[in-house]
């Protein structure tokens, strides 16, 4: 590895910087391209146009505005917990990005329990949201926090089950191996384009994306922040940069989940074609420039998936709370269980 020659402390600095870029760059891009621009276009308006060309500097204006605002803690709030909660939510995003492989050697960590770690860490944000709602000493916040907890736990399960199909097919929980498998495997003997799992695990992909939508509390699953019922849900009492952190975490997590979904279903950092020169089973023959090209390919795939997430967000109205729960337990979980069963059977047969 290229980095092996530099001292450990410098490696650590590189990793931290890389993590910050991998979290904040997708978040900023998603907010500007989708939240500011695409949503405006879908509502037949132009969105921000004044700050920079086509409003491209709007994000900095917004961040500047938030940083100037007063950091208010309600009098009866549980001060320390209240102030900690947004950071906890953001930390889970940073922990998530740690397992995403961006290239054959461009990754932060690479270990065999990657999928397991990813699923475990993604529920840390639930804790952050729950304690944010609880410590605010506000009934709206608490209801929002409880709703978030119920929703995130309900949709954690279909997400785990959807990923299981991929894990069965790849025969590994290592995200790097999953990428390599997708790009070098064959679909029922035909190996023209490798085997991106979106083709063979399409049901899993659908369930995963719906569960991600709910995990991110994006509409139509945005009951925890339902502004017409709960003011702003668990974020009601937050102001200034703590609100900003919640906001960044929301879209950074959207970006990271899009990255994870592209790793699991779209072939990750590879382009699955034969001329690409994939080694039959393993990454040792892949050219070095993929460490630069991989992140770019990942970014493109991330944008495509983020577009899908945001498109659904801007198109659909909010579910009711009971509909939300019923959808998770009565539709998504049975469907993904059947999917796992079919995958297992086909895996054994072929």
């Amino acid at each position, binding site marked *: 590895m290229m980095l092996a020659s530099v001292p450990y402390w410098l490696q650590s600095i590189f990793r931290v910087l890389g993590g910050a870029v991998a979290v904040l760059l997708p978040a900023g891009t998603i907010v500007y391209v989708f939240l500011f621009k695409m949503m405006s*276009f879908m509502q037949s*308006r132009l969105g921000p146009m004044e700050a920079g060309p086509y409003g491209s500097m709007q994000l900095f204006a917004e961040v500047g505005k938030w940083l100037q605002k007063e950091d208010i803690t309600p009098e009866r709030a549980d001060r320390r917990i209240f102030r900690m909660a947004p950071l906890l939510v953001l930390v889970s995003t940073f922990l998530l990005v740690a397992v995403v492989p961006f290239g054959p050697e461009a990754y932060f960590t690479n270990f065999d329990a990657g999928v397991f770690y990813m699923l475990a860490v993604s529920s840390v944000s639930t804790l952050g949201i729950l304690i944010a709602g609880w410590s605010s000493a506000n009934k709206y916040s608490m209801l929002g926090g409880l709703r978030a907890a119920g929703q995130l736990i309900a949709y954690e399960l279909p997400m785990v089950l959807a990923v299981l199909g991929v894990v069965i097919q790849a025969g590994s929980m290592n995200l790097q191996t999953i990428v390599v498998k997708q790009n070098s495997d064959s679909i029922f003997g035909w190996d023209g384009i490798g085997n991106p799992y979106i083709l063979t695990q399409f049901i899993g992909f659908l369930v995963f994306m719906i569960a991600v939508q709910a995990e991110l509390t994006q509409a139509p699953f945005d009951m925890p922040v339902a502004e017409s019922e709960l003011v702003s849900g668990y974020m009601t009492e937050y102001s200034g940069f703590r609100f900003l952190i919640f906001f960044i975490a929301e879209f950074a997590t959207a970006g990271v989940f899009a990255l994870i979904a592209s790793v699991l279903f779209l072939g990750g950092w590879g382009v699955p074609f034969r001329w690409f020169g994939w080694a039959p089973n393993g990454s040792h023959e892949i050219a070095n420039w993929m460490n630069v090209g991989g992140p770019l390919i990942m970014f493109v795939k991330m944008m495509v998936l983020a577009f899908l997430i945001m498109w*659904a967000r801007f198109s659909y109205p909010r579910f009711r709370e009971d509909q939300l729960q019923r959808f998770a337990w009565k539709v998504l979980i049975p469907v993904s269980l059947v999917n796992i069963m079919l995958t297992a059977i086909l895996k054994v047969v072929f």
Partner: protein
Amino acid sequence: MALPKPPKPKAPGLLKGLGVTLNTLAQTVKPKKLGGGAQTVQYPHEKETPPIRARGVIALREDNCTVCMLCARSCPDWCIFIEGHKDLAPPRRAGGAPRKVNKLDRFDIDFALCMYCGICVEVCPFDALFWSPEYEYSEPHIADLLHDKSKLGEWMETVPAAPDLEAGAEKKKGK
């Protein structure tokens, strides 16, 4: 009694919803020359033409005002201030007595109070008050929204011409 079932949509509603947003997106992104563009107007750079009957501001034709005070008295929030005095005008016919007329000294409307109900325009018997579609008269200080008769008179230029009468309507007989 069971309600009649609504007709089944051709495409599932969920996909239709996605189609609506995507079409709007395409329409907004399309260049203006091809009939695209947003429904909104980039206001300070390009101006919207208000509808002809827009209630922008109230304009005053001073010559028509007889200081009858009907508008000031009918105004629900008392935002019209009128002062006048009696004056003598030359007689209509030679040798007649000079006519007594009301001269308008002050006609102010406080647009900080005005709620744009238009009762004053309705009630004016001499066609002295008009709706103008002009809307760019905001002020940094609320007190500056009290506009006097010269300013109200300037807005007369922006008042659109009265629309044609409906076919068959009776024309007002001129004296």
